[in-house]
């Protein structure tokens, strides 16, 4: 590795993860290696249950890995002290696949964003609420959203709340797990544009089933299948010239106007 090339923002080496369920091991991840460069957006697509969320959760430190290595900015996260580990992880944010479950049911939306900002050193409630209001407006939520509770929103609205919360601190890495799946196209555009604004400083791990969104948003794409990485390449490569049969079938299945089942 040449000294000159800056280390990738996130690098995953030979990651495996297995869960024990009813006495059996379920291999969620099987030797996955990939890297997300600075200000790069890596799309992760693949079969449902192929380990995408698990990968994301391990990257942000929510899940332990069975084996392998994770490097933040070239430093193995397992090799550093607790404080540094926390400091590094603090620069990562995650947008959960289940937005509702990831919101505290007893806290208003504004308050939840405040808590996130507060954890990043911005302690003033009024200031944080103002930030929250701006963010919520940008994700297309009504004005009074900050004062409402999670259950008062629609599925898509909750997803947008989760996005607003995740980007509020300006993280350097965002794991977006199905971040826009519940959004209709018009709002999705808006959200993706918003997320794209951060692209200059933020690396994205963009997990999605929506091939169009991935195609539009990502620099590179990694395709996962049964816990393995089957193909990796630039967006154009993957979309226009997929090599792996699974990728091909994936692209083939994208719904389109003009085909009828």
């Amino acid at each position, binding site marked *: 590795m040449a000294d000159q090339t800056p280390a990738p923002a996130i690098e995953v080496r030979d990651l495996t993860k297995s*869960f*024990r369920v009813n006495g059996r091991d379920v291999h969620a991840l099987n030797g996955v290696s990939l890297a997300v460069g600075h200000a790069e957006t890596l799309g992760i697509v693949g079969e449902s249950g192929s380990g995408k969320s698990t990968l994301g959760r391990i990257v942000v430190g929510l899940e332990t890995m069975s084996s392998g290595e994770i490097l933040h900015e070239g430093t193995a996260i397992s090799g550093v002290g607790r404080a540094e580990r926390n400091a590094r992880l603090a620069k990562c944010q995650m947008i959960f696949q289940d937005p*509702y479950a990831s919101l505290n049911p007893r806290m208003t939306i504004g308050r939840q964003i405040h808590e996130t900002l507060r954890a990043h050193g911005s302690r003033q409630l009024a200031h944080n609420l103002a930030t929250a209001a701006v963010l919520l407006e940008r994700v297309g939520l009504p004005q009074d959203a900050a004062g409402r509770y999670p*259950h008062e929103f629609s599925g898509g609205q909750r997803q947008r709340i989760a996005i607003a919360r995740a980007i509020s601190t300006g993280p350097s890495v965002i794991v977006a797990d199905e971040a826009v799946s519940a959004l209709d196209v018009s709002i999705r555009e808006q959200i993706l544009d918003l997320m794209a604004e951060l692209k200059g400083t933020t690396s994205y791990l963009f997990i999605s089933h929506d091939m169009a969104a991935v195609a539009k948003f990502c620099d590179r794409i990694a395709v996962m299948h049964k816990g393995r990485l089957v193909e990796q390449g630039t967006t154009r490569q993957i979309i226009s010239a997929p090599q792996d049969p699974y990728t091909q079938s994936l692209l083939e299945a994208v719904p389109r106007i003009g085909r009828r089942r």
Partner: protein
Amino acid sequence: MLFYVARRLLTAFITILVVVILAGVLIHVVPGDPITAMLAQSGSADADDIARLTAQYGLDQPVWKQALLYAGNALQGDLGTTIRGGEPVAELLLDRLPNTIALAVAGLGTALVLGIPMGFIAAVNRGRAADFAVMLIAILGVSIPGFWMGLTFIQVFSLHLGWFPVAGTSARNIVLPALTLGVVHSALVARMTRSALVDILNEDYIRTARARGLREHQVLLVHAMRPAMISVVTVVGLVFAHLLGGQVITENVFSWNGIGRLAIQAMLQRDYPLVQGFIVIFATSIVLVTTALDLLYGLLDPRVRRR
């Protein structure tokens, strides 16, 4: 799994040992000693007698020595003999243990039988008259001192109706003390059930269960009660552990020959070996029940299981 259980049992054992040694020290710090207490009641508190007996019972030894000696003997299964009456402690306690367990189980069972439906009714009728009525009953149950309730039961069921004997330790006699314990503890169970249930009835998965067309009672009993029981079980388990240490008031009122009465007597007489023997049993029941609780969390709540 086997390894896990074995490790749990080992830590449980160590916990009990620590308790016993600590208790052995603590007990000597408590003012008053068995000999003075004994002689003060004998009408012969002669100073010479006190010194003589203190030495004869080995109570003039340093405290730590006594505590370790006791723990050592206890490890070999010897809990010693009582100072009053010179009876074997283990036998004395084990004779009463079944009575105590029976009362704890019956009392807790009654509390559950009374409390869970009450909490259930209150939660389902939240904010309505039934909710308030249940709360009122529950609170009456917990505010009335146990001895008062017990004595009233005796007056009504034993004296006036003649259904149960006033005193004794038998299957027939367990009804009233179990009822008393049950009423006292049902408040906690009822309020806890209600609290958990109210939260859960708002969950989306209850809506899903309804959408599946399940009968309302199925929705409530299976989908809502199962998760609600997690917090109820915690509380109930802890109460049960406590009950296994005997219920002095209830045992007294109903002349139930349980461990609690024996223990308090031992405590007041400073009958050290008996007190320590009791603590061994009490600690064992606490540790066993809490260990079981920790395992039970996993069973009841799969989300906690993997941890």
